[in-house]
């Protein structure tokens, strides 16, 4: 027991310095949803890098640089004083209704991933309505072989999938499901 507690303390002490290290196999998650709204209307709701308020897990978004490349934002999760995720914008294309960002800093206890990057895109559906696709690429939270369960590939995939699904579900509730 004492050893396990010691190891987990050691792990937490070591992990922040490993934010840019990563395991051997990058993972990907792609989720999407069809919405009963015009693509421009959906993009107006989610296309501002400085406002992640459309996602139910986000309490606040603060940032700098607007929607230009290298803009930054800090997402506060849950409630005031909640855990934060630091992100930076590396692609923004309003005409294609798509932007790409990566996490510059997150505690793996909050989101068990490293080297995380993501793209969110709105497209028009044939016959009307919009499709939102959210995809991410990332490594598990533990940088070497034999990861602890909470920081393995499955944990990383489950966590990212959960974030995406919650966001997409909120959009479905807001705009209605596409038929």
């Amino acid at each position, binding site marked *: 027991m004492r050893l396990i507690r010691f190891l987990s303390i050691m792990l937490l002490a070591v992990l922040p310095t490993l934010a840019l290290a990563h395991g*051997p196999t990058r993972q990907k998650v792609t989720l999407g949803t069809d919405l009963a709204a015009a693509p421009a209307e959906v993009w107006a709701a989610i296309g501002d890098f400085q406002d992640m308020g459309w996602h139910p897990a986000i309490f606040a978004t603060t940032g700098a640089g607007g929607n230009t490349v290298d803009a930054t934002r800090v997402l506060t999760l849950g409630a005031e004083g909640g855990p934060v995720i630091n992100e930076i914008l590396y*692609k923004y294309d309003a005409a294609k209704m798509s932007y790409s960002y990566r996490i510059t800093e997150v505690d793996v206890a909050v989101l068990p991933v490293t080297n995380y990057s993501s793209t969110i895109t709105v497209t028009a559906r044939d016959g009307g309505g919009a499709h939102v696709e959210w995809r991410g690429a990332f490594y598990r939270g533990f940088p070497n072989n034999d990861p602890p369960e909470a920081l393995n590939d499955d944990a990383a995939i489950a966590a990212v999938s959960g974030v995406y699904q919650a966001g997409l579900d909120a959009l479905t509730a807001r705009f209605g499901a596409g038929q």
Partner: protein
Amino acid sequence: MRAPILAAALAIGLAAPAAAETIYVTNQGSSDLSIIDGDSLIEAARVPVPGNPAGLAVAPALGAVFVVSPETRVLRRLALNGGAITGEAVLDGLPMGVAVDAARGRILVTDWAGGRILVLDAATLAVTGSLATGAVPAGVALSPDGRFVVSADRDADQLSVFDAETFAPLHRIPTGHHPWAVAFAPDGRVLSADVLADSLTVADPATGRILGHVATGARPYGIAFAGTRGFVTNQYGDSVTVFDAATLRVEATVPVGEYPEGIDVSSDGRRVYVANWMSNTLGVIDAQSLEPLGEVATGDGPRAFGRFVAP
């Protein structure tokens, strides 16, 4: 009699723009190897390779391709013709990159966890030696003249240069932040793709001197040369930076699939092949016109980290 045969051969040659060659792509997500015919650009076979393979190196002289599965620490030798597994070895640490010294019958495998290059006998796959590198060596390459072995030591921000014959350590060359791939230009200069610096470091392996840098797109991941040009995949740029190999000046940025990683060229130098990790494709670019020539579907998560085209 001879003229018609020659004419027929020429006609066949003209109909097939690239020399007959085979392209091998490690699909890390689906744990297999795509074997793609270079003439038809059709995936001829997909061979299971357990353990999320990433690094690979073709060795035409040995009739083999060597593939590293980092998650299970296994190096495998597969026959170039058909992809049958002809040998495997379980290694210590976390093996990642691989290069082949066919003339000396040696396989060189980086070990992330151990900070070293493992040396294996190409025939028996027995470990015969170990070279100390900096922390987290990823890419490894042998110089075209067979004199130097170089590793890109990701967490040490350096290249480690060794004498390929004696394994004497020669130089530690500082690079930009997080060098991942290492490759030799045809003239013998060595280059690292410095992922977090968005640039390449160019150095002389004989003297250890830095000769210059190349500004790339976001997150450079692989380097290859065709003719007078160098090509670099930009993982976050969904692009390939094209530069003049002599002057190091950037000539063009070519869009490719998403998250491009491994890059290699056809044996005739006319095509560039790019593994698009997110798109699950192998992209093909004309090395001269820089126009896209096509895309081939692969397994999930193609990485092709190493040399992967066999004539």
